[in-house]
């Protein structure tokens, strides 16, 4: 392909991947703004109580006590999971009216992890989907269409990544004679916004690429977990064949202690109960995290026989779940305090400007844009020199 034809091809790639994905990405970027601060906003909107003021280092209550408190509120229901918040000393006990139905009918009780006092009796996840943050999350992740919506928005994320790559390729010929950061503000509005589109696009390139790509990976979390369960579980579940999900369970505190003893130097993030959608029908699954900045993002699942409380297996995370776990902080921007969250929001705003200006450039002056490409092509043909590919 000649240099001119290459530019034309990359321009078409950039135009079409952008056009198809831009409206969805604008929705994703705008809903992403409150989601960056979801912890803070949820605290603000919550009508529950805050955790008690206790000296640092006050030990947690045994899991049995936390679970018993939640169970007392819902005596006929089943425990789905226990999750220990790593930001605040509080625990969430997930409850389900019917075993294995957590996604539809589940809800969680929030407790002070040290005193086991009930702080908030949360709504069902299904009704929470229509709270302010629930709407933001649905528009950001699945458009209320479940797995199909997740895969669709994941695909939009991949188109965004292709748009970024093709945009970088076009940056080369566009900027051949323009110094970095040139904004021809005194020329037409279109030229000014073309320059700003190029400037903001190239400056936010790596951030947008990483957040876009890790976002697409996050949209695959449901099938990736299913894949792991189907490869890990059959051998472990063979001895239990034909048995129902047990309801007379071992002490969760004992299960946690056995899991921690099996993998020293770890902490419990959460424990799935038998029948949990991301667990096993016959085991507690203790999700243990490490104690360094990176390994605190990575979990080792320990399977514990739900009736005896003994460790059945320390499972290995396959590479694709490790990739998923690393891509979470890199997408959420929640791994270095409030300053990083603010930077995430500002870089998100910059991306909104890139998307909006891209759309404007296409709508307002389609013809002028095409003429500019024709001009670049003509110039390359006239120069007759081989164009080094910048990619």
């Amino acid at each position, binding site marked *: 392909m000649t240099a001119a034809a290459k530019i034309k091809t990359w321009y078409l790639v950039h135009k079409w991947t952008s056009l198809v994905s831009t409206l969805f990405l604008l929705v994703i970027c705008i809903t992403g703004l409150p989601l960056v601060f979801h912890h803070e906003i949820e605290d603000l909107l919550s009508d529950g109580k805050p955790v008690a003021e206790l000296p640092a280092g006050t030990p947690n209550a045994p899991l049995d006590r936390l679970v018993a408190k939640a169970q007392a509120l819902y005596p006929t229901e089943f425990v789905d999971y226990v999750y220990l918040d790593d930001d605040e000393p509080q625990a969430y006990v997930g409850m389900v009216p019917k075993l294995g139905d957590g996604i539809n009918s589940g809800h969680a009780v929030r407790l002070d992890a040290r005193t086991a006092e009930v702080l908030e009796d949360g709504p069902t996840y299904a009704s929470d989907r229509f709270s302010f943050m629930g709407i933001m999350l649905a528009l950001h992740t699945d458009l209320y269409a479940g797995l199909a919506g997740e895969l669709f928005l994941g695909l939009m994320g991949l188109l965004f990544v292709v748009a970024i790559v093709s945009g970088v390729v076009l940056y080369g010929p566009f900027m051949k004679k323009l110094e970095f950061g040139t904004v021809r503000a005194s020329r037409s509005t279109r030229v*000014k916004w073309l320059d700003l589109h190029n400037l903001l696009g190239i400056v936010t*390139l790596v951030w947008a690429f990483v957040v876009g790509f890790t976002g697409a990976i996050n949209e695959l979390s449901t099938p990736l977990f299913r894949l792991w369960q189907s490869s890990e579980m059959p051998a472990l579940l063979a001895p239990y064949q034909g048995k129902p999900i047990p309801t007379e369970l071992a002490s969760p505190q004992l299960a946690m202690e056995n899991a921690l003893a099996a993998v020293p130097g770890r902490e419990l993030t959460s424990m799935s109960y038998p029948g949990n959608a991301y667990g096993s029908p016959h085991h507690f699954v203790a999700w243990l995290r490490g104690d360094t900045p990176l390994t605190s993002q990575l979990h080792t699942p320990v399977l514990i026989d739900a009736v005896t409380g003994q460790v059945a297996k320390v499972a290995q995370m396959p590479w694709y779940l490790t990739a998923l776990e690393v891509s979470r902080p890199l997408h959420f921007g929640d791994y270095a305090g409030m300053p*990083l969250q603010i930077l995430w929001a500002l870089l998100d705003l910059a991306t909104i400007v890139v998307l909006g200006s891209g759309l404007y450039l296409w709508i307002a002056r389609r013809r002028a844009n095409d003429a500019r490409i024709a001009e670049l092509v003509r110039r390359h043909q006239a120069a007759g020199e081989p164009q080094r590919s910048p990619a």
Partner: protein
Amino acid sequence: MSPPSRLEGEYRSAQGRFLFVWGMPLLLAALSIFGLLAALLGTGVWHWASWIALAWLLVVIARYWIRPRER
């Protein structure tokens, strides 16, 4: 009249032309990667390094947006 422009691209060496277009983008890309990883792999001072590195991107945007560099 403006002083002789530094950007007579065509007369420069291939390396000069490459750096003229890609020098700053490569620098900012390296800064971004450092900023994203520093906070993921370290704590304390590495968090500060990460905040500064990523904030620098916004400073660059503001610098050229507010006071455009004309051709």
